[in-house]
């Protein structure tokens, strides 16, 4: 997320809470609890009913359908960009620099004489890959650490809470500038690693909160009384019920990570050529905006639409998973 750090102010004491910048309807997100039991009369349906209800809602939500279609399209062209773009994104002819739209080159050329259309199509792969992989990393690391801390509590939990505070206190863009400026690799992994490193506390805090809530449920207490092991409790009983808020926040965060990658590239510490990414293209086109605005507008537009699609998807999923809004 550009220019501001994401954070998740601690609201554990206050009981009800609100999300941080990453999570959109803020007050709705953290209060996500399991749907009240009587939703479906049969308690065996309980875990399923949340998801099936949500799915039922989502299928009829135009916002969800549109954003899912956009994302599907993005994933397809990320995997097979040559489906819709024939040239190579690295083929550039300086003689054509900054030229506008023309036959075979609908988006024109950028300052280096590369075809903007081809680069925009190929840029999707990097952005989507960074978004998805970083989100996966953040979600896995965050929910494992947060979940364990929430489940076991005690000293480990206290230490983890302080560590998350430490990470929240450091501005993200600043951390990126410092850490990524020494990286010489030109793959996408350093950027992903960086996002995971600074992003996990957000998920960890949410996972911790929802595990604590889930832990107090009667059926968990009952399972514990029956002698279920900790791992069984966590995996079979708590995780399925605690995962919803994580999914919601992660989907929305995905969009902001894509945007963050672009910001880092703008500051010169993000991805490096010959990687093709919207962030690189936006930052190199930005100074030329007066002479060749098209070279800035197309990748920016593609970036904005992608981020928008993921955020809207997250928004829709949240609405569907939040029983309070039913």
């Amino acid at each position, binding site marked *: 997320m550009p220019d501001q750090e994401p954070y998740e102010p601690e609201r554990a004491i206050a009981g009800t809470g609100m999300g941080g910048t990453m999570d959109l309807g803020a007050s709705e997100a953290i209060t996500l609890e399991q749907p009240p039991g009587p939703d479906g009369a049969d308690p065996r349906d309980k875990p399923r009913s949340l998801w099936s209800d949500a799915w039922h809602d989502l299928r009829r939500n135009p916002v969800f359908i549109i954003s899912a279609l956009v994302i599907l399209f993005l994933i397809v062209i990320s995997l097979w960009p040559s489906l819709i773009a024939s040239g*190579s994104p*690295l*083929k*550039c*002819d*300086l*003689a054509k*620099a*900054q030229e506008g739209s023309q036959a075979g080159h609908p988006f024109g050329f950028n*300052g*280096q*004489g*590369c075809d903007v259309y081809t680069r925009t199509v190929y840029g999707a792969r990097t952005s989507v890959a960074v978004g998805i992989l970083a989100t996966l990393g953040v979600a896995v690391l965050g929910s494992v650490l947060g979940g364990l801390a929430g489940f076991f509590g005690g000293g480990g939990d206290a230490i983890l809470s302080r560590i998350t505070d430490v990470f929240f206190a450091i501005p993200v863009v600043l951390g990126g*500038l410092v850490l*990524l*400026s*020494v990286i*010489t690799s*030109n793959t996408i992994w350093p950027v992903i690693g960086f996002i995971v490193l600074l992003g996990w506390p957000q998920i960890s805090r949410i996972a911790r909160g929802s595990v604590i809530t889930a832990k107090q449920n009667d059926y968990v207490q009952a399972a514990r009384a029956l002698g279920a092991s900790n791992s069984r409790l966590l995996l079979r009983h708590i995780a399925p019920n605690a995962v919803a808020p994580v999914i919601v926040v992660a989907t929305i965060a995905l969009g902001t990570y894509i945007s963050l990658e672009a910001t880092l590239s703008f500051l*010169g*510490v993000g991805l*490096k*050529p*010959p990687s093709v990414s919207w962030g690189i293209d936006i930052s*190199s086109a930005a*100074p*030329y905006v*007066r*002479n060749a605005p098209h070279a800035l507008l197309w990748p920016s537009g593609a970036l904005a639409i992608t981020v928008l699609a993921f955020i809207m998807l997250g928004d829709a999923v949240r609405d569907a998973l939040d029983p309070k809004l039913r």
Partner: protein
Amino acid sequence: MRGAEHAKWAACAAAVVLAATACGGGGGDGGSGGGSGGVLSSSWGDPQNPLEPANTNEVQGGKVLDMIFRGLKKYDPKTGEAKNMLAEKIDTSDSQNFTVTVKDGWTFSNGEKVTAQSFVDAWNYGASLKNNQRNAYFFAYIDGYDKVHPESGSQSADTLSGLKVTGPRTFTIKLNQKFSSFPDTLGYAAFAPLPKAFFDDHDAWLKKPVGNGPYQVDNYTRGSQMSLRKWDDYPGDDKAQNGGVDLKVYTDNNTAYTDLIAGNLDLVDDVPASQLKNVKNDLGDRYINTPAGIIQTLAFPFYDNDWNKSGSEKVRKGLSMAIDRKQITDTIFQNTRTPATDWTSPVLGEEGGYKPGLCGDACEYNAEEAKKLVKEGGGLPGGQVKITYNADTGSHKQWVDAVCNSINNALDNDRACAGNPVGTFADFRNQITDKKMSGPFRAGWQMDYPLIQNFLQPLYYTNASSNDGKWSNEEFDGLVDKANGQTDTAEAVKTFQQAEEVVRDNMAAIPLWYQNGSAGYSDRLSNVELNPFSVPVYNEIKVG
């Protein structure tokens, strides 16, 4: 704000006509200038090091020193020729022992007389290890330097034994080797005289430097602005033609340029490459583009076996021929650079050692030949070259990408070349000093003084301070030594050019282009020029 600004300017213009009062541009504290004309505002970058003459090694600090100091010599803003300024005469019979006579009648702006002692004290301060002066090595030719600035351990002397004050206005310099053009180096800022106040209350001096140039510092807010005002009693003949200069710090030269267009700034001396295309439109003839003593090259890591084996000079030559310099300077730089055909700079002039075409075919674009040479030389090491550069300053990304695209097109391989940005200049320099480069990297050279020696020796002499590629060649070293000992300038230049041919034959670095200085200015200014160091000649600028 904008409206108010304009109104103020109108009022200023009127006031200039009536009473010749100074007016601050863009909300400065106008009014303290007096004398001839108003105050102009100019873009500036925060100097990296404390503003001491022997501690300033970049253009932004150099700009200020150029305004507040005058040394023994001064480089002519037009020709670059070193002319006597404070020096009445500098005599030598053997190119090793010099006698300097300082002109009478010069003072610092605080009234103190400029004497031989002012110079000797300043140079001793600059050379002494304990003062941490970044430019200390400029004094390395003076006898006794190894005592005050040993390579390791602590210094055994505080003053240079080669400097002796022989009278109030005379001192002698003994060098540790013959160096015929040494007097011509004395126009460099590091050789400026310093007043007693510098040594007595150093902190106060740093807050508000005092010198002997046409301007004096009126107000200095570090990191944001410096106000310089005309020094009315300046004894030199290059008096300021304006009331003063407000230097304003900009983080980004694009922002400075937009501020100029919006009418909030009078002078930008670094027009960003991205704006060059519209500069004629924005400024009309208020834009200047003049050659400067700067050459951009690509250096190679000669400590890396891949680049230092037999045949690799063919690869380097092939890469050089794969770069379409003309197209890049036309398109990316809009002719503010000129394709390089030797390793010096046009500002030297042909008698100064500049020799167009010395590079020959090797600097001409020829895709076929390039492909052939690279193949003959054993191909690109690792199949791909990465051009390393620092991404935080200048418009390096644009040209590195363009160079790579040109190489890719010439070699018919999309992945033959890629730019490799390094986040910070400090890290870039670290990788160079730690010998971590694995392929060509950006090497720019801005001359310290307009001599061919300065374009060759610091860059290609074995273990020289800016020999970033660690290239070493006995023949070259021998020729440079020979040239330095030659008292006849024309002969020395010829020997230096022979040394340059050695550089060419080995393609020790690929010359890219000569850089021009470019500046844009507001319609309040006239007579704006850039000197060969690409710094505006502030004292000549007329306001109003």
